[in-house]
């Protein structure tokens, strides 16, 4: 169970990035998975460069995480500026292609620069305890879960309660009308990308610390699953992304654990399709019935 939850938490963290961008631009940011990958490598090199790798301390790790988040935020904003903004007036499908291009580019660059795989140092002590008989808690799982939940509530607050969040939702409905209200659309979009990308970096650091290995294609697999989770939960919805992530993580873990692991992906996708057929806008998505 807990395995599934912490796996799901990671999916959820990445899914938040997809969902936020979708929430403002109605765009599937295909390059998001690669931003997540870059986040992992940025953390690694930052840890090396700052010496946190040799003598890890909690503030040190936090600093590395912050650095990686800032780096990815800048990367996300750059991607948006270079590859998406020029096509704002074209259809979403066309932006999708530049997104795919960016994703391919980052992945190939990653392969060239980082090689196939790199090991990630142990930065936080790993402890395990058993608060209840049979329930094994690992420190990394607890950290992952709590970080995810905190970020989810934080984001939810940002989107629902702040003027910036209102602006995001306004931009999502109509960029022109939002501009007429005096909302600086470009800046809102940029910040959305920055926040989403920073979340991906946070997820990447958590995964890297837990699994101790990072690879340039981790964005492709992790990104795809997270994207599926975002849609499953109802893309555009913050709690939906988290719910979708947990559901997918649990589903995969349960299938591998109790059914045939060879069929895991098929069953996970099967569940996805099944759910979408009954809730065509995802678990928590608002099904926006077109008013005729």
């Amino acid at each position: 169970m807990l395995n599934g939850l912490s796996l799901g938490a990671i999916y959820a963290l990445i899914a938040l990035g997809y969902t936020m961008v979708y929430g403002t631009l109605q765009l599937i940011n295909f390059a998001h998975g690669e931003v997540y990958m870059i986040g992992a490598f940025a953390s690694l090199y930052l840890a090396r460069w700052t010496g946190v790798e040799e003598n890890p301390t909690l503030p040190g790790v936090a600093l590395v995480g912050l650095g990686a988040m800032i780096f990815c935020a800048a990367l996300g904003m750059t991607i948006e500026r270079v590859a998406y903004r020029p096509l704002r007036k074209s259809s979403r499908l066309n932006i999708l292609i530049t997104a795919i291009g960016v994703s391919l580019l980052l992945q190939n660059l990653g392969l060239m620069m980082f090689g196939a795989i790199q090991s990630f140092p142990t930065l936080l002590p790993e402890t395990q305890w058993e608060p209840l008989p049979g329930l094994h808690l690992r420190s990394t799982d607890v950290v992952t879960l709590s970080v995810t939940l905190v970020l989810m509530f934080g984001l939810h607050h940002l989107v629902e309660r702040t003027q910036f969040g209102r602006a995001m939702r306004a931009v999502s409905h109509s960029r022109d009308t939002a501009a007429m209200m005096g909302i600086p659309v470009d800046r809102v979009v940029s910040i959305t990308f920055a926040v989403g990308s920073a979340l991906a970096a946070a997820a990447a650091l958590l995964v890297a610390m837990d699994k101790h290995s990072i690879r340039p294609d981790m964005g492709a697999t992790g990104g795809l699953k997270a994207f599926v989770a975002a849609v499953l939960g109802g893309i555009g919805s913050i709690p939906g992304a988290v719910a979708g992530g947990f559901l997918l993580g649990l589903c995969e873990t349960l299938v591998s654990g109790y059914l045939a692991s060879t069929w895991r992906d098929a069953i996970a996708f099967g569940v996805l399709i099944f759910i979408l057929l009954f809730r065509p806008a995802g678990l928590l998505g608002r099904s926006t019935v077109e008013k005729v």
Partner: protein
Amino acid sequence: TGGSGGGAEAPKEVVIGQYGSLTGSSATFGISTKNGIELATDEINAKGGISGMPLRMVVEDDQGKPEEAATAVNKLISRDRPVALLGEVSSSRSLAAAPIAQKNGVPMISPSSTSVKVTQQGDYIFRVCFIDPFQGTVAAKFAYNSKGIRKIAILKDVKNDYSVGLAQFFNETFVKLGGTVTGDEAYSEGDNDFKAQLTKLIAGQPEALFVPGYYTEVGLIAKQARQLGFTGPLIGGDGWDSDELVKIGEDAIIGSYFTNHYSVDDPTPAVQNFIRNYEAKYQSKPDGLAALGYDAAVILYAALNDVAKDPAMAAALGDRSSDPAKEEAKKAARSRLRQALAQTKNFPGVTGVITIDADRNANKAAVVVEVTKAGPKFVESVPADGGPAGSPNDGAPPPTNQAPVAGEAAGAVPAPGGVAPGGPPPGPPPGGPPPGAPGVAPPPAK
């Protein structure tokens, strides 16, 4: 080396084509192989090439995709007109390329495609690595006989042909030997959470885990298995061979075993020379793929040298014009090269003493190594004869002597490059062997 090329008026060179994954997610495999081949090529060229003609290597990328491999080979054969082809690591890519090499009569040597089917594509297709059934058998026998393991569980990469093949042959042999496979689970390349599968496997209380995957996942699997309280060893195949394995798996993977083509701590001068030269050139330790690439190239060059003894053949090999009249001669030379390759016998490669059998597979020993903090440590060597005798697809008789056509055994060709010429089998290595004997030597005692 004989330097008398027949009537070389124009500068001639012997073109070799190589294809592999230089881009894409398996790029590191292709690049390792390429490095190994490059090293061998440089060594030959430093010694004057083939009958005085330099070797020229043309490398094409296949992005790690079968269809691209076919295109790359088409390009090589039609544009660069190589005398032979080297590639690929992955069986799926080799399989897509092999029919083209076969159709055009260009000998192709795969350094490390282990699927049985690769060389079945035609008589121009060779390989220098052992095949899945053999490796699976070796691992099973090692587990059952040497380690006394009776209950084992398997965790394979369901997306990977290599992993699935190895798991299958391991399973068959282990059961035949009398062992029990307590569980058989799968993951997919790129996963990083295996706890669900491991929980299930460990519940069957196996003494060891057989994990025939790539090091990219194995390190994580080991860690997570330990977290779940599993204490037995993990056993795997040559896909484990990388420095990163220990870095990722850390303590969890120490004390596990895998079968491999060669062992870096093998003190044989041939091996040590190779390692030294490789490190000098690339500033990194050669992995198994580099060694196999090296061996594939060296065996090819030995055969080329052999063919080039005939001046007419040498001229055809070095011919680069697209003159159709000369095409016939080139064809004959390639065919002759194919024969020479087929007769390779007891060739002292870095990855063992290689004999090409009637199925054009490499008949050679496998080594079992233990993962230690200092790197892989040699445990034992399993000779081809003893190993795959029962393997289902290996119908040919183990001693692989073909009727020699040209009289010379390939093994008699001087070993190229820094590899010290040593008659097979090499004598006991100087400096005192570690417990257990070098991989290239006939097994010490078993």
